[in-house]
């Protein structure tokens, strides 16, 4: 009782021998933790439901409507919702529900590269993805290297950000012509500066951490440090920002379509649907303009809710 037992190793920890089941369990739980951040926020879940609804109808569009978006029903132009046409028809008698969900397809699910060839992923998503790749790379390089490189890159990007966004879109689209690929290019060019700035500011903070010093003392290459050590720790804000940006991109696509610079007609495009339908609002058939406007609004709001909910919840989580 008087002398402590010195054979007990100081500060010993209970040692558990992990078998593979335990490890698998640990990984599953980690995934669950990530998802629970999402589900903990009602706002994020509401946003997610809206977004998933649109993604769902876009993916299964061919199964959800008997009409092709181009099929014209000459007998029933400009009609309201009816049994035959769920949401009504436009001035050429095309089914608005078909056009709406095929329009969502272009935005969210497929990127038509030529008439017969498309890649999965959606125009807005591809645009933001490419902007993310370019912007993140620029931001990492700027932030990590600093100095003249940083100065020059950031001033160039500042110059781009000085141009009003709509104007920039218009310039790019008139120069390149209206096509889905060119919309991707436009979204990339417009989105890059903002993403680069965000990533740069995150990098400036993260690169002062000691694990970056540790990597440097191991003689790691700058690319390893930027993409393996820094980038994963910046992912939270980047993901939130990307979601907001997809919302902006959808909005921009609508604007371009409205101005006649989006998908070439007659392909279903929300913006051009609004533009066409606009003429008939006062003639008693607001449907052609109403549905795509609601679609754009709900999708943008859904993405914003998702991003905000995630951001708040992950901040509380930390």
């Amino acid at each position, binding site marked *: 009782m008087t002398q*402590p037992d010195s054979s*007990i*190793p100081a*500060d*010993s*920890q209970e040692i558990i021998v*992990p078998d593979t089941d335990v490890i698998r369990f640990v990984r599953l739980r980690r995934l669950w933790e990530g998802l629970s951040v999402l589900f903990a926020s009602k706002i994020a879940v509401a946003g997610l439901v809206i977004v998933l609804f649109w993604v769902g109808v876009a993916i299964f569009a061919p199964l959800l409507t008997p009409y092709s978006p181009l099929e014209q029903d000459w007998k029933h132009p400009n009609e309201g919702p009816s049994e035959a046409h769920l949401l009504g028809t436009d001035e050429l008698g095309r089914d608005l529900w078909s056009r709406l969900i095929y329009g969502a397809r272009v935005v969210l699910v497929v990127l038509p590269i030529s008439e017969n060839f498309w890649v999965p992923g959606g125009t807005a998503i591809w645009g933001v993805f490419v902007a993310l790749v370019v912007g993140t790379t620029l931001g990492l390089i700027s932030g990590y290297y600093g100095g003249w490189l940083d100065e020059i890159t950031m001033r160039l990007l500042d110059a781009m950000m000085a141009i009003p966004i709509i104007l920039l879109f218009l310039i790019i689209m008139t120069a390149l012509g209206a096509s889905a690929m060119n919309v991707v290019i436009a979204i990339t060019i417009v989105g890059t500066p903002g993403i680069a700035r965000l990533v740069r500011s995150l990098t400036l903070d993260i690169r002062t951490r*000691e*694990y970056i*010093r540790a990597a440097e003392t191991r003689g790691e290459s700058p690319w390893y440090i930027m993409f393996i050590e820094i980038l994963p720790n910046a992912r939270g804000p980047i993901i939130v920002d990307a979601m907001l940006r997809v919302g902006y991109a959808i909005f921009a696509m609508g604007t371009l379509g409205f101005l006649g610079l989006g998908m070439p007609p007659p392909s279903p495009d929300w913006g051009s649907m609004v533009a066409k339908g606009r003429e008939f609002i006062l003639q008693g058939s607001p449907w052609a303009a109403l549905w795509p406007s609601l679609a754009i609004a709900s999708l943008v709001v859904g993405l914003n809710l998702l991003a905000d909910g995630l951001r708040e919840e992950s901040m509380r989580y930390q």
Partner: protein
Amino acid sequence: MNRTTEEKTGDAVLDVNSLTIAYETRKGDVHAVRDVSFRVRQGETVGLVGESGCGKSTIAFGIVQFLGPNGKILNGQVLFQGNDLVGRSERELKRLRGDRISMVYQDPMQALNPAIRLGEQLMEVLTCHQDISQEEAWERSVAMLKRVYMPDPEDVMQRFMHQISGGQQQRVVIAMAMLNNPALLIMDEPTTALDVTVEAAVLDLLEELKQDFQTANIFITHNLGVVARVSDYLCVMYAGELVERGPIHDIFQNPRHPYTMGLLACVPRLGESKLDSVLHPIRGRVPSPAARPDNACVFAPRCDYATEECTKALPAMVEIDTGHLARCIYAKEIDTQPRTHRGRRRVAERKTAGPSTAETDGLLHLDQLKIYYPQESNSLVSMLGLGKKRYVRAVDDISVRLAKGRTLGVVGESGCGKSSLVKGIIGLEEITGGDIEFMGFDVTQPVRERDRKLIQEMQMVFQNPDSTLNPSYPVGKQIARPIRKFKTVPKHQVKDEVLRLLKAVRLGSAYYDRLPRQLSGGEKQRVGIARALASRPDLIICDEPVSALDVSVQAAVINLLLEIQKSFGASMIFIAHDLSVVRYFSDDIAVMYLGQVVEIGPAEAIYSPPYHPYTEALLSAVPIPDPDAEQKEIRLSGNVPSALDPPSGCRFHTRCPRRKEMLPDGGAVCETEVPPWQESGRHRILCHIPIETLRRLEPVVHQEVA
């Protein structure tokens, strides 16, 4: 510090009775402080010590009812001058706070408003609580600044906080707290953010103010040395409970609670070294507030004396002596001696010292190393590359030799170039001049241009446990990376090697898949050490590896580093600002001041005369965890001069307390001529004062040998 231990109730300013504080969380109420009682009398300082997470600050905030929206007092009384503060209205409390009760916080940078002139902030304290004119407030503020020894108080009133140094900022905060002559002053780690020399001066000031104003003080700190210097009465906190309280001398000489003993046993005392004593860490860690048992001793899981009895009921406070109580059922029977520092002197088994220099080859050789940073200026002239370039001389002309298997300690105040020096060695900072020779190879180039084999031989352990590991990857992966990169073992054995390293730093294989955020500070630091060991380096550079850790964990990490050095045979460079830890850990020590080494030699030689005057001042400022230690009081005046424009001659001459008395003509030579190296064996001192004169200096600390 000469006070009587008898219990008087007449002059009690604050009486805390069985205070229990809880925070509301999603999982229900969490008790942060349980059943704490103590009393503070006029003109007396009560120290509250304990590791982080023990509820010290919660008590401080609980006294002033400042617990935030989710904190609440569940039970107990806070009697301030006889009146219970619990349940008072916000308006009444506001009138008390800052007037009758003042607080001083850890970080003066956050206590002062950077956008308002200091004078205005000081005057506001007066005009807010008293009906006095601006002129009078001004005069009283100036008088108080004078009282806390601020140079040029009138001038300071006009300044903003960034225009004065950290120590001066804390003086202003203290002045602000004292302006209304409060009855109770609560200080929450007031000196933790300060350099040791500044800390010593602030502690002197607090002691003086206590005598003059007869304030009742509560002093919260984790540092036993500091608390020994300022307190009359001590409360030891553990996991939200008061485990021991009593007069300071009683507790330090005769601790009765195993936790108190543990705390005293795990800090090295100034002058102790790894050769003659062993640190005893406390195993495990402080349980989280939710995991604390209601009907057992909270310390039992970490206690070496615990028996089954301990887990049966919450122990009550046992009175050992008048005013000395401990919350342990064995308080009266425990044999304290073997574990406290008094008992652990002169251990039988000597740990092996590093081999002496004569026996082995040099490993690292610095020759007139210089690291300058160009000073960026925003003027147009310098942007165009014209005009004279100015340099911050972070490291200026340093020559050091480190032998294989030995440990070099580097000490000095912050801003003296310690970190720049190691960054230069490891290749993260470009070298302006001089040579670095490592294992016979020239390594003056930055790390990216170094050979992979050389990089592998030199690794680093970092200071901050929270940023030393990449939060995105599990522990195993982070340790595996250097193994894979340097191919120390074949690919299929990497995992085994990682597990071996985890075992070497006393972490089980269960840690392999954990993420850094699931680890405690000490565990993270261990993983950091394992990562540094993974490439099997010959030289490990430790940049303040324990300064961000709690004392009990600190001891465990120090022991681990020593053990690793013994089994892996690596040399180490050990940087720390804690002179006791450096002394304990190192074979040789270099004292740095303003980019230069001013004294270097075997550790034992540095800590006894002859001293460099700067070393002497540093040593006399070290807080010693023993209220009876007699320590010379040498306080440096002024701040460390700017490295942009270092003083001519001897760099220390502006603050040197010795040159006037020890040199003819008041040390005029120090101002003009660079001092010579004076040698006595391997011990070298950079000073004009002859080494014979320095040798006659008295030792800084008088310690009776037990």
